[in-house]
C-alpha cells in the first residue's frame, strides 16, 4: 500500500473507493429513477432536470450511468478474475508439468500472445455468442495469454536464481517450490499487472457493449449507454459524453493505481534537492607536478536523507609514466574516484576538488579532444563496455574520426594497427566483428587499443581483470605494463586484489570508506605497511604461501556504508587498536616517511619513537586477537 503515499496513487485509490461505493449503493438508491419511463421527455438534451438528458424512452441518463457502475465494474472484475486465474494456471503449468508438456503450453501461449486482446475477444465473442456471458468469457480469455506470458517470464526469472536450485538440492518438490518460493517472489508484479488488466478489461468491455456484442438490452452498462448516446451525438453530446467520461475515469483509476503501485514497488526514491555539500579544504600542499594531480576530491550524491558522500577528500599525484595502484573493497570509493578524475560523474553527482589537474591543466578546462586522445579508460566488465550493435573497428575508429578528423579509411587503418599492437590476431578481420564475437580477454585488449587510438598520457584501468580468468588476467596486466613502457603513459590501476596491485605497480593507495588511508611504495607494502586496515587486509588474503595450519586472519564486521560514516575514523569499529580518539576524530593522511603517508592516530602518536616499534607491534597483536572466527 506504498502506492497510496504518492499524490497520484492516493487520488486513484480514492476514486476506486468511490467507484466501489457507487457500485454497491447506486442501484439501491437510484435504481427506480433510472428505470422510470417518462414519455413526456423523450430524447432530451442536458438540462437542470436531467443532467445528461434522457434516452429514447425518456429515462434519465445520469442516473442510468450511476446505476450502471455496478454491472460495469462487476463484469470487468469477473472477467479479470477469470482471465488472471486462467493465465496464472497456464503460466505456472510449465514449471510443474513434465518437460515436453510444459514446452507445448509455452509455445501455445507464445502464439496466442501475438494476437491483440480485442481480436481474441472478437474471436471468442463469435464462439460464445453475443451477450453478457459471452463477453465476460471473451474478455477473460483475451487477458489470459498475456498474463500467462507474464507469469512465465517472471517465473523463469526467479527460477534462474540460486535459491531455487538450493531448494531443489534440499529435495523440495516441484509443487512446493512453486507455491513457497516462486509465487511469493512474483506476487507483487502480478498483483500490479492484475490491477492494470482490470482497467483494460473495463474499457474493453465498454468497447464490446458499444459495438453491440456485449451487454444486451434491457441490461445496460456504460458501453451500452455510450453506444445508444452516440447515435444522437450531433443533436446532444451529453448522453454520449457522460458514460464516456465514466469509462475513462474508472479506467484511469485502475491504471493510475497500478502505475503508482509499480513505481512504489521499484523503490524509486524521491530525491530532495538540498543545499549542495560543503567542501572543506584540509589538505597539505605538496606540489608534485604530475600527469594527474588530485587535491581534496569529493564526490557526493543526493540521497533520501540528504547528501551522501562516497568519496571524502582524496588527494594524490600520478607522476609521468608512473604505475599507481588503488586498492579497496567494494564501496570504498575507488571506482568513483576514477570516474571523478576523468570527469565521467554525471548529474546528480557533484564533484568538488581543491585541485584536479590533468597534464598541468584543470580538468574542467581541458578540451574533450585532449581528454579523448590523451586519457584512456579501461573498465571492469568487458562484456558490457562495448556497444553490442556496432562493430569493434567502428567503435575504435570513432575516436580518430571525431578527434583527429580522420577519414573512415585512415581511421580504420589505424584501428588495425592498434589492434595488432595489443596482439589481437588477424586484426583486420577482427575489426569487422561485433563485440559478442570477441572473448572477454580479447575485448579488454581491444579496450586498451581504443585508448591507444590517441596518444595516451594516462590510462585509468578500473578493475580491468576482475571478470577475467587468471591466465588471461596476467596477459592484460602485462599489456598495460607494456603500454606504459613503450608509450611512457602513466597507469592508474584500480583493483580489489592487493596482490595484483603489488605485482604490477610502483606505488599503492589503500582506500577505505571514501578516503585514502595509506599510500606507500609497493616494494614496502609487505614489510612496512602501517595502517591497521592495510596490515589486516594483507593478512586476510590467502596466497600461495599462506600457512595452511593457522586460521586466516579476519577483520571483524564489515565496511561502513557512506551514510553510516560518523565523526571518527571509519575503520575504528573494526580496528583492534582503536581508542577513544579514533572513535571521535578522523585522522588526516600524514607523511610518516618519504613517499609513505598514513591516516591513523595510533601511528602518528607513536611516530616520535618509531624506533621502539610500538604501534606496529600492537597491530600485529590485534591481528592475532582478531585471528579467530568472529
Amino acid at each position, binding site marked *: 500500500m506504498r502506492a497510496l503515499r504518492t499524490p497520484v496513487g492516493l487520488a486513484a485509490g480514492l476514486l476506486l473507493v468511490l467507484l466501489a461505493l457507487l457500485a454497491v449503493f447506486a442501484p439501491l438508491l437510484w435504481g427506480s429513477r433510472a428505470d422510470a419511463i417518462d414519455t413526456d421527455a423523450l430524447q432530451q438534451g442536458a438540462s437542470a432536470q436531467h443532467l445528461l438528458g434522457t434516452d429514447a424512452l425518456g429515462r434519465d441518463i445520469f442516473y442510468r450511468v450511476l446505476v450502471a457502475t455496478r454491472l460495469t465494474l462487476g463484469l470487468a472484475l469477473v472477467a479479470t478474475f477469470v482471465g488472471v486465474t486462467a493465465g496464472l494456471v497456464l503460466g505456472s503449468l510449465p514449471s510443474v508439468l513434465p518437460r515436453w508438456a510444459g514446452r507445448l503450453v509455452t*509455445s501455445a501461449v507464445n*502464439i496466442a500472445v*501475438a*494476437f*491483440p*486482446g*480485442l*481480436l481474441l475477444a*472478437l*474471436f471468442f*465473442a*463469435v*464462439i460464445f*455468442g*453475443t451477450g453478457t456471458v459471452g463477453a465476460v468469457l471473451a474478455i477473460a480469455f483475451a487477458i489470459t495469454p498475456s498474463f500467462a506470458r507474464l507469469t512465465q517470464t517472471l517465473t523463469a526469472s526467479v527460477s534462474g536464481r540460486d535459491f531455487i536450485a538450493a531448494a531443489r538440492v534440499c529435495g523440495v518438490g516441484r509443487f512446493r517450490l512453486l507455491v513457497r518460493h516462486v509465487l511469493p517472489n512474483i506476487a507483487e508484479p502480478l498483483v500490479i499487472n492484475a490491477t492494470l488488466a482490470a*482497467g483494460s478489461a473495463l*474499457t474493453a468491455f*465498454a*468497447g464490446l457493449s*458499444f*459495438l*453491440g*456484442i456485449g451487454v444486451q438490452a434491457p441490461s445496460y452498462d456504460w458501453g451500452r449507454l*455510450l453506444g445508444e448516446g*452516440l447515435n444522437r*451525438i*450531433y443533436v446532444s453530446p451529453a448522453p454520449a*459524453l457522460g458514460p*464516456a467520461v465514466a*469509462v*475513462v475515469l474508472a*479506467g484511469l483509476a485502475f*491504471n*493510475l493505481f497500478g*502505475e503508482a503501485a509499480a513505481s512504489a514497488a521499484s523503490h524509486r526514491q524521491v*530525491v530532495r534537492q538540498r543545499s549542495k555539500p560543503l567542501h572543506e579544504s584540509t589538505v597539505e600542499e605538496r606540489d608534485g607536478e604530475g600527469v594527474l594531480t588530485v587535491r581534496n576530491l569529493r564526490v557526493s550524491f543526493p540521497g533520501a536523507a540528504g547528501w551522501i558522500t562516497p568519496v571524502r577528500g582524496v588527494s594524490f599525484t600520478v607522476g609521468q609514466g608512473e604505475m599507481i595502484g588503488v586498492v579497496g573493497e567494494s564501496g570504498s570509493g575507488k571506482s568513483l574516484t576514477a570516474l571523478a578524475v*576523468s570527469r*565521467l560523474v554525471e*548529474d*546528480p553527482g557533484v564533484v568538488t576538488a581543491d585541485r584536479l589537474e590533468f597534464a598541468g591543466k584543470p580538468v574542467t578546462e581541458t578540451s574533450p579532444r585532449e*581528454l*579523448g586522445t590523451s586519457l584512456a*579508460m579501461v*573498465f571492469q566488465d568487458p562484456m*558490457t*563496455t*562495448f*556497444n*553490442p*550493435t*556496432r562493430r569493434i573497428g567502428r567503435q575504435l575508429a*570513432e*575516436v580518430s574520426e*571525431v578527434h583527429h578528423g580522420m577519414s573512415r579509411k585512415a581511421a580504420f587503418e589505424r584501428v588495425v594497427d592498434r589492434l595488432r599492437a595489443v596482439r589481437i590476431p588477424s586484426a583486420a578481420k577482427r575489426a569487422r566483428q*561485433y563485440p*559478442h*564475437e570477441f*572473448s*572477454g580477454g580479447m575485448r579488454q585488449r581491444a579496450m586498451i587499443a*581504443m585508448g591507444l587510438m590517441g596518444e595516451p598520457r594516462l590510462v585509468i584501468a578500473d578493475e580491468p581483470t576482475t571478470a577475467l580468468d587468471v591466465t588471461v588476467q596476467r596477459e592484460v596486466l602485462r599489456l598495460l605494463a607494456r603500454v606504459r613502457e613503450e608509450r611512457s603513459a602513466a597507469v592508474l590501476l584500480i583493483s580489489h586484489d592487493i596482490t595484483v596491485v603489488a605485482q604490477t605497480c610502483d606505488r599503492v593507495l589503500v582506500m577505505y570508506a571514501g578516503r585514502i588511508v595509506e599510500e606507500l611504495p609497493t616494494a614496502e607494502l609487505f614489510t612496512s605497511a602501517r595502517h591497521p586496515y592495510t596490515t589486516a587486509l594483507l593478512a586476510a588474503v590467502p596466497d600461495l604461501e599462506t600457512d595452511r595450519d593457522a586460521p586466516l586472519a579476519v577483520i571483524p564486521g564489515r565496511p561502513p556504508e557512506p551514510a553510516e560514516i560518523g565523526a571518527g575514523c571509519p575503520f575504528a569499529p573494526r580496528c583492534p587498536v582503536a581508542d577513544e580518539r579514533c572513535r571521535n576524530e578522523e585522522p588526516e593522511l600524514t607523511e610518516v616517511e618519504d613517499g609513505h603517508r598514513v591516516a591513523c592516530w595510533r601511528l602518528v602518536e607513536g611516530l616520535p619513537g618509531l624506533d621502539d616499534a610500538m604501534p606496529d607491534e600492537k597491530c600485529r597483536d590485534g591481528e592475532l586477537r582478531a585471528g579467530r572466527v568472529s
Partner: protein
Amino acid sequence: MTQVVERRVTGGSWLPFARRRAVRFLTSLWVLVTAAFLMIHLIPGDPAREALGMTASPDVVNARREALGLNDSLLTQYWHYLGDLFSGDLGTSLVSGTPVADLIGDRLPATLQLAVTAFLVVVVVAVPVGVVMAVLTRGGRRRGAELGFTSTSVVLAAIPEFLLAVGLVSLFGVALGWLPVAGRDAAGSSVLPVLALAIGPAAVLARIVRVELLSVLGNDFVRTARAKRLPARLVYVRHALPNALTATLTLGAMMLAGMVAGTVLVENVFAWPGLGSTIVGSIQQKDYPAVQGIVLVYGTGVLLVNLGVDMVLALLDPRSTIREA
C-alpha cells in the same frame, strides 16, 4: 560458454535464425487457420440453427448446414477448408451472397489506409518525444517535466480509442464543425480516425522509448562512449538509441498489432467503410464465413507485423539472432 557462442556466430547465425523464425511464423499461421476453422465448430449447438433463429424450418436449416459443409466429417471439412484457402476461396457470405474474398478486397484498403497512416503518425511523434524527454530527465533531472510527461502519457494511454474518437467527433465534428464526422469520401475525413487511433499508442510508445533510453544510458558502453569524449549528440544517436530500439520495437510490435485491432472500434465510430465495421455486423448477423475470413486477415496481418519487426531487430542488433535459440 563464450566459446560456444563464438562458434555459433562465426558459423553464421543468420540462416538458423531465419529458419527458426520461418518455422514459428508457419506454425502460428497454421494455428490461426485451424482456430478460424474450429471457431464455427466450437459454437455451442448448431451454428446453422443459431444463425437462422428458432423460427426457421428444419429444411432451411439443413440447406444451410449443407451450404456450410457441416454435414461432412470434421476432417473432410478441414481438408476442404485448407484446399479452398490455398486457391484463394474464403467461402461465400451468408448475408450478401458475395464471395468473402471480394468483400475483403473491397474493405481491406480502407482499413490499411487507416492503420498505416496512424502507425506512421505514432512513430514520427513518439520516438523524438521519447528521446527528448529521456535526455532532459536523465539522472533524475527536471522532476517536474518528468512528472508532467508520465502523467499525461498514462492518462492518454488509458483512454480507449473509441472514446477518444467520440470526444474528437463531439469537439471537432459537432461543436466546431471543422472536420467531417463520418465516412471516407469527404476531404480530411481520415484526420479524426487517424488521430483517435494514434494518440493512445503514441503516448505509450513515447513512454517506452524514454524508459528504454534511460536504461540504456545507464549502461557501461554509454560510459565508454562518454569516456571517448564523443559529442553528446553522437552518444545519444549512435550508441544509445540503436540499443534502446531493440526493446522498443519488440513492445512496439505488440502495440502495432493492437492498432490493427483498434481499427475495429474506430471504424465503427466513424462509419469508416473498412473491415472493422464489417466484422461487427457479421458477428451480429452470424455471418460465419465472413467472420472467419476477416479474422484470418487480421490474424495474418498481426503475424506479418511480428515477423517484420523480428527481421528489423535482427538487422539492428546482431545478437538477437542468437538469442532465444
